């Protein structure tokens, strides 16, 4: 319980973060930016977990554990995604997502 901050406030922030992430994911053309946007989505969910745990079930630990899990996965995902992006750049000399559609069929 944090003095003066309601659960709803934090949820508003995370919702904003989530949709900013979704917007970025759908609109930006730069692969790195898309990756960053997906990190935003993940982290907003992580904050949700922590907050629900803290405000609703202060004695439980599952929310924290899930957050740590998400952070680990995000790290792994970033490593893989960046490796892919580097290879895409080597191959196409660009990281514009619209130009990388060769594998559609």
């Amino acid at each position, binding site marked *: 319980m944090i003095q003066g901050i309601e659960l709803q406030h934090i949820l508003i922030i995370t919702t904003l973060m989530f949709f900013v992430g*979704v917007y970025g*994911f*759908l*609109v930006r053309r730069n692969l790195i930016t*898309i990756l960053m946007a997906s990190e935003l989505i993940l982290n907003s969910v992580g904050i949700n977990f922590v907050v629900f745990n803290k405000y609703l079930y202060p004695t439980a630990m599952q929310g924290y554990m899930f957050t740590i899990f998400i952070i680990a996965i995000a790290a792994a995902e970033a490593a893989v995604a960046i490796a892919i992006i580097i290879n895409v750049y080597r191959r196409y000399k660009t990281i514009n*997502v*619209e130009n*990388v*559609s*060769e*594998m*559609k*069929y």
Partner: protein
Amino acid sequence: MDWTYTLAIILLPLATFLTIGLLDKSMPNKLAGVLGTASIGTAFLLSCYTAYQYFFVHGMVDGAYQKIVAFNMEWLRFTDTLHIDLGVILDPISVMMLMVVTTVSLMVHIYSNGYMHGERGFNKFFSFLSLFSFSMLGLVVATNLFQMYIFWELVGVSSFLLIGYYYEKPSAVAASKKAFITTRFADLGFLIGILLLSWYTGTFDFTELTQTTAIGGLAMAMPMGTSFLGLSIVSWALILIFMGGAGKSAMFPLHIWLPDAMEGPTPVSALIHAATMVVAGVYLVARLFPIYAIAAPDALTVVMWVGAISSLFAAIIACTQYDIKRVLAFSTMSQIGYMMLALGVSQYSEGSNLGFTASMFHLTTHAMFKALLFLGAGSIIHAVHSNSMLDMGGLRKYMPITFVTFGIAWLAICGFPGLSGFFSKDEILVAAMQHNTPVFIIAVIVAGLTAFYMSRLFFSVFFGKNTHYHHTPHESPKTMTIPLMILAFFAVFAGYIPFNEFVTSTGEPFHSHFHWNVAIPVTLIAFIGMGIAFVLYYKESEIPTKVTKALSWVYTTIFHKFYIDEIYLFVTKKILFGIVARFIAWFDRHVIDATMNGFAIVTNYVSVSIKGLQSGQIQKYGLIFLSGAIFFALVFIYLFV
């Protein structure tokens, strides 16, 4: 008496085959030759020992030679009654065949060391020879029909491999395929026959099958009234089994592969296509002889007539051929027909089983002199570098040893008094005379024809015109002439073995005496045949050409082997490939394939038409995914909240 050592006779060539075959090129040629020869030599010595032990020491019990199962092992078990065994059986005919096969095989091995010298694939040749020896010996000692069938196919494979030994030559490849397919087709009948017979008898085992008491029950056990085209089921089973035998033994009308099989190296022709494998059919009938004779006399009549027709047919063709090996091939076919005929005129009872003994007797003597003829022909071909008799002539001056040994074999096959062929042929003719007059007449005609065509061959090769050779022919090396001399010894003296004491259908020896009333006229006929050939071919003359001119269309028909090959080609190419196969191919292409193609085409069409939805733009996918997620979220909110 422990007979287990007989297993070594069969396993030695197998071990040699594996050793030479696996080491192949990493083994020096000389070593491979010596190893192959030594292994079959050991098998030969062991066979001699076995024969001595069997015939003179342990085999005779209660005045008859017994069947001894030396070794038996269950190989495959399906049910309690249906199981396939592998083993070694010893009885007069199998021991006799062991002797024949190892003797001829040993001679051919020694001979091949010289004949195949310097050939590419020398080691391969020897490994195949060992494989063949193994399979043939396994066939001979088979304890049951199924083991026989297994080894039967194995000899077929080794024959295929050896005929196609010169695989760069298209004709050799075609010949090996022809031999394999023809015999395989015949073996289809053999397999069905085995299944039919064992279905009613409930056993594959020879010892059980050929018990006389069991056979009496067999005819009863066949369901009453089940006859097909007027013959009982057991007759059909045995006729089908004989079909397999006829295919292997090149009996009319399944003989077409044998002349072509001469494309193989000559030692192979001597071993497989003259002395051993081609008599497997005779051996098969002899093996099942009690059943043939007691339960299915009709089948035995078929055997007799097929043998008689084949022998006459082949003898007529042999008179017109020019390829030295083909003449010998047709002669082989003719002589095997003789053996079949002899089996056909025999019966399973005291006093009238002369034909059986005569057949086995002729099998042995024929193996010796025919192997000798082939090896001699190989020696000639080695010197002249041609198969055609037109390229030969006056060779007696150049190749004295071949001349003398070939001459002995020639006299033996013609039935010259005192040589082996004389005695065995005489027994066959006596048996035929006692049983069936038309067959006897055919046999006598064949005897005359045999004398004629063999003399034609002999005179035109060793006498006749003085051919000018590019390089002077020379006598073959010792490795080739020594087997010739040994076989010549057998060709002379094999006739003095008292076969009626050893090899009979019942196992009991019987007394036979020489029938001068048959021997003298038949010998005279043989002399007439030889005399005609002498007049025509001893010196170069115009008469043969005139005779062929006078008989133009008859001669052409015979020269083309009565167009049997053409008939086969017509049936297979025109009818089977042209009509039946064309229809099936149409059905396959337009119905079965078309259905499958239809599925593929529909799938393809659908996928092409919807693949435009795939843009490859990750963000579009993301948008669709998001819309879907929101849609479902709204649905769930509406439903549950």
